[in-house]
């Protein structure tokens, strides 16, 4: 039977085994758990905020204000990383609207992407994105879905060397181009990789997550809920009482705790339009994280 003590020991042991620093935010009451970015040691909360679909609200002021409220609750709960892309419609101006309304919170960790076939247009797109966010520079820029990565990546690394950017990364989703992702991780000096990982989509556990640990690359996890599908699917069943040990009180937290308890994961980025959901998501990065045995039990329960 799992107890609080062995769950905590399991989480710490898994972290140590992966060669990562312990959860820096553990002792902070109310603050989300953090894990250091391997290339610098900078602590990053284990839950961030995605913006795919949810922040694409066009010029609808009412919905822009709802998004700003989500951002306010996110920062209030100790969140930092917000992730977006030029591909996400009006998500970038919506973030810019929210940041301006919140007077540009200092905690923000801005994660953007470059997504354009013509590499020569990359700098222009990045500058347009930066202006839409209204930030002096991005913390992290990622090559979205590896589009023209051979040309974009050197440009991003040059930006980092020039101090115009703090971190460089690459992204994929839903298991696409994992072979290329592995090759880039093994050969390029990137700081971040973004992949899909959740309790049912676990392919990255085999090669990409171990490689990230080996190469000291931070991992951002997209589609933690498969755009809500997992929550809708699991909601028909009762939340198992044995996860109460971890503090998980909802299916969203069950799913997120499974993800962020993997020691190679730096940050999961669920997206939402609701303030109560963003609070619930961030709260998943508090309390205890399941150890290997409990993770296996959670995965079995999810598959059943």
């Amino acid at each position, binding site marked *: 039977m799992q107890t609080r003590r062995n769950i905590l020991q399991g989480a710490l042991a898994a972290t140590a085994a992966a060669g990562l620093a312990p959860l820096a935010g553990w002792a902070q009451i109310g603050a989300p758990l953090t894990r250091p970015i391997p290339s610098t040691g900078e602590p990053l909360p284990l839950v961030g905020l995605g913006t*795919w*679909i*949810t922040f*694409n*609200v*066009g*010029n*609808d002021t009412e*919905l822009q204000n709802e998004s700003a409220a989500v951002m306010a609750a996110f920062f209030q709960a100790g969140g930092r990383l917000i992730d977006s892309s030029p*591909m*996400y*419609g*009006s998500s970038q101006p919506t973030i810019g609207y929210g940041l301006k309304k919140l007077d540009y919170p200092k905690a923000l960790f801005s994660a953007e992407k470059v997504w354009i076939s013509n590499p020569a247009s990359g700098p222009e797109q990045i500058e347009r994105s930066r202006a839409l966010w209204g930030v002096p520079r991005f913390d992290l820029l990622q090559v979205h879905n*590896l589009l023209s990565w051979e040309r974009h990546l050197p440009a991003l690394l040059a930006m980092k060397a020039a101090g115009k950017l703090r971190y460089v990364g690459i992204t994929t989703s*839903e*298991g*696409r*181009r994992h072979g290329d992702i592995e090759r880039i991780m093994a050969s390029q000096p990137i700081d971040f990789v973004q992949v899909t990982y959740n309790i049912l989509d676990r392919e990255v556990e085999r090669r990409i997550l171990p490689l990230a640990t080996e190469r000291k690359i931070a991992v951002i996890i997209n589609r933690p809920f498969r*755009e809500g599908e997992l929550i809708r699917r699991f909601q028909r069943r009762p939340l198992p009482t044995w996860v109460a040990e971890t503090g998980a009180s909802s299916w969203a937290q069950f799913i997120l705790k499974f993800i962020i308890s993997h020691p190679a994961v730096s940050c999961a980025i669920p997206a939402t*339009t609701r303030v109560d959901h963003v609070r619930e998501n961030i709260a998943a990065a508090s309390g205890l994280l399941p150890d290997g045995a409990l993770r296996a039990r959670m995965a079995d329960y999810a598959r059943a």
Partner: protein
Amino acid sequence: MSEWWTYAPSDFLMFSPRVYYRLFESYNLSFWPVAVVSLALGVAIFLLLLRPTRAGHRIILAILGVLWIFVAWAFFWERYASINWGAAYVAPVFGLQAIALMWTSAVRGKTKFVATRALPDVVALALFLFSVIGYPFVAAVMGRPWLSAEIFGLAPDPTALATLALLALAHGGMRWPLLIIPLLWCLLSGLTLWTMEAGDFFVAPVGALSAMAIAVIRARRQSRT
């Protein structure tokens, strides 16, 4: 796009149904006077169909051309592109259709709209009337706010469907090439709504395919006479 076979239609849906229908609400509020004019133009087209004249055929095509260019600019370029970057590419396609309709009206002058009491013609007329008068009710029937109604001349689906119904009644000229863009749009829109799990996803595609079937039946009938 690499590994294109791994993508599903849902991977391209970048907005929520709520945002999509609120877009129609704000669009209708901004352009409601145009709705009054476009509905009046729909009735005018119907009357011109009942009393065909050489000028009438040209006027019908010209009205359609004006409405298509309006939808291209006001809906796709000004509104829809704010939540779907793909709309910025659809706008010029709708503009192209508008130019083709107006060119057919002004230059070619050979396209005639002929509606008899034969069943396919009656169905095409009914389809046109549904596009103009019935389509705005679809939103309410599906439980959405009245303000989110899709209106002929403002929204792409009823405009494309009405155009297909009219072209199904056309003889001569460029009617076949003119069918392509509205047909493709109705299919694409149906796919979008299906991905959004909207219950009315089938309306535009089924209507469009019905109009195509009528066009084919009429063409075969004409070739025999």
